[in-house]
């Protein structure tokens, strides 16, 4: 398996997703992992350095498994891209667990504008292909492939 590079927030991978985009994201905690994976999703679509965090959205999700919680959270970001033309650059995520896993997130960004923002690939969907969330000695790591 991969020797996780935990000094980075995420890394795009060259060798697996031929037609699409694959990345690993890292975090010392589950929250940080979710925030960095969210950033990687947005970086696939835009250079987030140019996205001003002026519009805030709150996202709440429940799931039976941690990987489903991450999957649904990232899918929500893809939804906002089409539904409200919003791309995000700042993420504050809380993950808890009682009977189910629960996520409460505050994500901030702005409506995109092709004359102002460096747009990249339109994500169609987050996929389950090779999807993996794992805890290692160094922290948390996930592998995600998005359909573009």
């Amino acid at each position, binding site marked *: 398996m991969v020797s996780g590079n935990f000094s980075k927030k995420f890394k795009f*991978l060259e*060798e*697996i*997703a031929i037609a699409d985009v694959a990345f690993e994201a890292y975090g010392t905690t589950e929250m940080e992992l979710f925030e960095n994976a969210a950033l990687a999703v947005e970086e696939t679509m835009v250079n987030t350095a140019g996205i001003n965090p002026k519009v805030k959205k709150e996202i709440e999700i429940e799931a039976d498994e941690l990987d489903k919680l991450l999957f649904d959270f990232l899918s929500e970001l893809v939804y906002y891209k*089409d539904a409200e033309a919003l791309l995000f650059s700042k993420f504050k995520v809380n993950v808890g667990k009682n009977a189910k896993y629960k996520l409460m997130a505050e994500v901030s960004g702005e409506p995109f504008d092709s004359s102002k923002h460096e*747009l990249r690939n339109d994500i169609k969907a987050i996929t389950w292909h090779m*999807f993996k969330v794992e805890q290692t000695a160094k922290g948390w790591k996930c592998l995600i492939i998005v359909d573009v």
Partner: protein
Amino acid sequence: MPDDHAAEFAKPPMKKISDVCWEIDTSFKEGMRVPARIYAMKKLLDEMDVGVFEQITNVACLPGIQKHAICMPDGHWGYGFPIGGVAAFDTKTGVISPGGIGFDINCGMRLLRTNLTVDDVRPKLKELVDTLFKAVPAGVGARGAIKLTRAQLRAIMLNGSKWAVENGYGWSEDLDHTEDYGLIKGADPEKVSDKAQTRGIEQLGTLGSGNHYLEIQYVERIFDEELAKKWGIHQPGQICVMFHCGSRGFGHQVATDYLNTFGDAMKRYGISVRDRELACAPFSSKEGQDYFHAMACAANGAFANRQAIASMTRKCFEKVFGRSAEDLDMAQIYDVAHNIAKVEQHEIDGHFKDVVMHRKGATRCFGPHRPELPAVYQPTGQPVIIGGSMETGSFLLVGTEKAMTETFGSTMHGSGRTMSRTKAKHIVRGSELQQQMQKHGIYVRSVSMSGLAEEAGLAYKNLNDVVETMEIAGVSRKVCSLKPLGNIKG
């Protein structure tokens, strides 16, 4: 090994059926119900990524599959099914799988002809491409100029291209020149989530990004003059317009929604699959039928989308050339879907039988006399539109009778990638590629320079080999090849 995630599987042993067809026996993997067949000339087979073999043999394990699980020569790994995957399932005992259709439901190709020549277009190429780039929004989350109400979106789900034509987007004869007349039956908007509708409502008449594009092309070489003439292709140098796009956020959300639903349904129906993206449900079950009805809505949305883009394309030509689209003979040659499932009749063990045909990155290529074809294509077989990379060019083909017995009337959909997007843009810079193409007389406008680099020709298989494979197999025949002059992309 870079990234360490590649190749865990080895290529399976294969029996040679012909120079371009290879069979993997059911003994290869536990649970295989039928053999898997790969269409590829030896060179393409050797280059094929191993994920294809793993995935197509997984497909061969699904309940109710008929004859063979098939992969086309442009195959590469996808989600659940490989791209290039073709499978037929018994309507009573078989399944339907969103992974056998793809996230971009009814992604497809459309080809319009003109009576212009390269000499007419070259002096106005920049103006034409710039006009199209402005008129047909492309790129991340692009929104269209057509504002829809929820009631109109519902009408689109139910009526597809017909809605577009009735509302002023296109010509009534375009419908005859669209697969299934631009309308998949069985659409039920009640089966589509509010989320899917919200994602799609502002995107009618938009291209999207990735490998979606609109291209001004010229006919390079004519292989079948008689047939080409019948279809309005008269000479090399004649200008055509080809574009590639699908159902946008609307279809993507329908697929995401039902992949989720099917995950739970499989537990109830006692179906286990080897891959979470291979989620499926019995076609006759409530979940299976709900997805089929929702998928038809998204497919109809995609037909309407391409119909709107065809109409906008004609308007751009009218503006730039100061002549009407009728005068420019901008008729539609055909529109084909290459990510779709439908109920079709095919001959299996000597009897005609209803099957749920899945084509994922594969194109229907019916031969002559199929009742689904309009009168104009009854004697000839249907046109098949194959888009290549921007640098290599594209093809117009025709379906054959042999396709009906070999591949359930299916052929490839494009050239197929060989290199990841992330790697391609490390090797090629978008701005350099744009300049290089300009040197070759091709003018490109792209919303995203990195997106342009990802679509460089070096990231794709050789389209000639892919098309030649299916020609040798006798499944589809070349009518003409087309080369790009101008291109817009997301």
